[in-house]
């Protein structure tokens, strides 16, 4: 028996002259869309086109938190569908995604924050999502090392506790989906930069890349932080701004933290990986940028906020700090579906700081929309034209720092 296979996870190919579907961006969203198109709808003549390597974008840079305790009914329903798909994905892909449903706590340090968490708990429960408010005693039991005393500047008053939330191995998700796509004959083209589209009337005829031009019946933009650049090439306008989001990881420690801790008031979140490292994330940089460089002020902010929660970590060293680009929308909800301006140009963008957890549902239902030509109800609220209709999906309170 061979313990480790020499087989490649995915192969490289020459570009063909045409495909049924060309997907720009081979992050978790592009991959999930291709995967469900192939698996559920038998559409396999697909090219995934990515200018970088697999995981170059936010899919290889996120903090891998999954949860479904959002604020709006539209959001809760959608993210819960994604969580359910993730629960079955390791088995389906025959690939261990190391999904640990260790529980997720969103801390409230002020009356206003706690009121917001209560609204979420009620909405979550109505929609069958395990989510409730707990007080400092229960928080202390779940997280023995967190500082629940009155010593911090903003003492912890309560938390929104979401037991099915947790962390997954993000690289494994990307690689597992890539392998599954490859096995279905879907082509993954890395180092393939899209530089333009040939548009005729209301149709994108072909995609122009640094490796040549390919025709496609349907084109999908799944480039997250770079979504505006691709839309501009197709002549489509987007209500998106790109901001960097930073995170860091400490040296490994013995396991002591078995839950994801988020504090919107402190602009920080913390979890401990299976390797023992603490992953600490921040809020977005306060300006638009495409630069993926970390900054010292953000590192200081992450460290000082983490110490408010866990003062005993003061001597722990940071190993790495990094940034990814996030595509922020006005209502902190994604933009999924066909663009009004063109008949065969679909977007799966606006994933901001929270899109990793959404990928299976976004991919599954966008695949259905592409295959059937009908928009499934679950993604209809996120249609690109909702801003024109002034029908926004206010998710800010549950998505801004919470991931």
């Amino acid at each position, binding site marked *: 028996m061979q313990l480790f296979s020499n087989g490649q996870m995915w192969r490289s190919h020459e570009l063909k002259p045409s495909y049924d579907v060309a997907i720009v961006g081979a992050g978790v969203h592009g991959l999930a869309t291709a995967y469900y198109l192939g698996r559920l709808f038998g559409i396999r003549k697909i090219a995934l086109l990515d200018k970088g390597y697999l995981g170059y974008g936010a899919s290889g840079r996120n903090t891998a938190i999954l949860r479904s305790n959002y604020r709006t009914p539209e959001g809760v329903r959608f993210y819960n569908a994604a969580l359910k798909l993730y629960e079955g994905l390791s088995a389906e892909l025959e690939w261990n995604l190391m999904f640990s449903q260790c529980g997720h706590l969103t801390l409230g340090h002020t009356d206003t924050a706690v009121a917001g968490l209560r609204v979420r708990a009620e909405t979550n429960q109505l929609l069958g999502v395990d989510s409730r408010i707990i007080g400092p005693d229960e928080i202390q039991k779940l997280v023995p090392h967190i500082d629940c005393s009155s010593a911090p500047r903003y003492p912890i008053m309560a938390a929104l506790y979401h037991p099915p939330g947790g962390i997954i191995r993000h690289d494994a998700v990307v690689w597992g989906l890539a392998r599954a796509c490859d096995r279905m004959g879907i082509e993954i083209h890395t180092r393939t930069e899209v530089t333009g589209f040939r548009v005729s009337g209301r149709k994108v005829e072909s995609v122009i890349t640094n490796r040549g031009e390919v025709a496609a019946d349907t084109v999908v933009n799944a480039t997250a932080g770079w979504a505006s650049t691709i839309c501009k090439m197709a002549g489509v306008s987007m209500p998106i701004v790109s901001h960097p989001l930073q995170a860091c990881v400490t040296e490994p420690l013995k396991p002591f933290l078995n839950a994801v801790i988020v504090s919107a008031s402190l602009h920080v979140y913390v979890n401990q990986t299976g390797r023992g490292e603490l992953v600490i994330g921040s809020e977005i940089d306060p*300006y638009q940028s495409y630069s993926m460089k970390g900054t010292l002020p953000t590192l200081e902010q992450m460290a000082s906020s983490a110490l408010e929660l866990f003062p005993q970590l003061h001597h722990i060293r940071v190993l790495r700090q990094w940034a990814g680009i996030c595509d922020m929308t006005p209502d902190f909800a994604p933009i999924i579906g066909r663009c009004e301006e063109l008949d065969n140009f679909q977007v799966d963008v606006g994933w901001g700081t929270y899109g990793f957890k959404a990928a299976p549902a976004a991919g599954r239902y966008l695949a259905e929309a592409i295959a059937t030509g009908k928009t499934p109800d679950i993604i209809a609220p996120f249609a690109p034209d909702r801003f024109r209709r002034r029908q926004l999906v206010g998710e800010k309170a549950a998505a801004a720092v919470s991931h």
Partner: protein
Amino acid sequence: MSFRIPCPQCGERSAYEFRFGGEVLTRPQAGADDDAWYHYSFVRRNEMGIQTEWWYHRFGCRQWLQAVRDTRANRVIRAYFPDGKEQTDLGTGES
């Protein structure tokens, strides 16, 4: 290189002294159609390259200025007050 902005009043400072005010937009005239308001309210150029933006020097002279910046490297090419006047040397003692 760290991200610095040359304030026309105070000189070159860390970007963290400033508050980002978004892309410079042209407000539609009263009575403009819905499409114009949709673009003004929601759509952004979000340039991967050079764009003109508002910045407020909150830990300095507390004035709004405009900067031309390359968003790929956070390099500010030019910063000036919106009325176009060069105000590098006001010397009014008021800031």
